[in-house]
């Protein structure tokens, strides 16, 4: 079975506009940025993880539902990261993904402990399983 998180991360990092915003700070399999991460020092970041989904009938395609959280120091910058994520993912295809589709548009939220603003959004992604 292919590492779907790696495939998604590689796809996101291959997008210049998104990479210019978040650099390599795309954290796979995480709900929040790693301990010690500083939005002020390291800039915006994205965390993402699988929240469900299935395979196709013959397990030839992985079809996970992915939760993305776009973090930044300000709400406006988080929105900018979210828009770049949308441009990178919506109906995307390429070397790593077969297709991606928005499941739930972004909603502005704030982490209760750190007060970090983030945009929460969900995509369904198709990845070839081999």
């Amino acid at each position, binding site marked *: 079975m292919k590492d779907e998180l790696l495939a998604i991360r590689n796809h996101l990092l291959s997008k210049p506009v998104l990479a210019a915003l978040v650099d390599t700070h795309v954290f796979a399999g995480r709900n929040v940025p790693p301990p010690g991460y500083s939005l002020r020092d390291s800039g915006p970041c994205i965390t993402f993880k699988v929240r469900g989904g299935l395979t196709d009938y013959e397990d*030839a*395609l992985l079809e996970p539902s992915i939760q993305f959280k776009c973090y930044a120091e300000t709400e406006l910058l988080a929105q900018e990261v979210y828009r770049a994520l949308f441009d990178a993912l919506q109906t995307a295809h390429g070397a790593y993904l077969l297709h991606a589709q928005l499941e739930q548009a972004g909603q502005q939220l704030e982490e209760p402990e750190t007060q970090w603003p983030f945009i929460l959004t969900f995509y369904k992604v198709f990845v070839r399983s081999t």
Partner: protein
Amino acid sequence: MGTPVVANIVKSGAWLYQAPVGETIPAITTVGYGVAWGGNWVRVGYTKEALKCKYEGRETDISVEEHLSPIRRWRIEETATLETVLAELTATYLQLAASEAKAVTTVAAGAGTAGYERTGLGDEVVLAEHAWGFEGLYLSSTGSEFPVRVYIWKGTAVINGELEFSKKSDDYVGIPLQIKALCDPTQTEGERILRFDRVTAAAL
């Protein structure tokens, strides 16, 4: 029949095969589960839905004046079909599903030219006939894997629905396929439309 046997409950997908009419079926006593059927049998790629096999018979009742209910019943017509949806969109599978007889054109990539495959549909009245079959899994009471196979000696195929191209749906393009069996008079009476085999024990 008699005592219920839990192991006789089969939970399995199926692999679809096709071959020229008259192709020898794989030896049920030696070709194991998951082993290629050999000869000119070709597995028909990935499917995106379960394979469904349906046998239907049409009957006529014989009634007499002396009784209220029929006293005899005859079968006067029968059909067998296989249905699934092919997951791979290729010229070969489109042609197979449409029972087209002409060959697919395949051109390899060359210097400055892309490779491609080509087929078409239209104005051909003769339907290509093929032998068809599928294999599923029977798991014995000891956990051994044995094949369950159904063969249709001769049948034609039809594209049985729409090919949906959508970038907004959460599904992908498939080729709906229906195979309709024909009677093969060269076979033994009673199995001229299909045969069912299930391996029940390993060779000694």
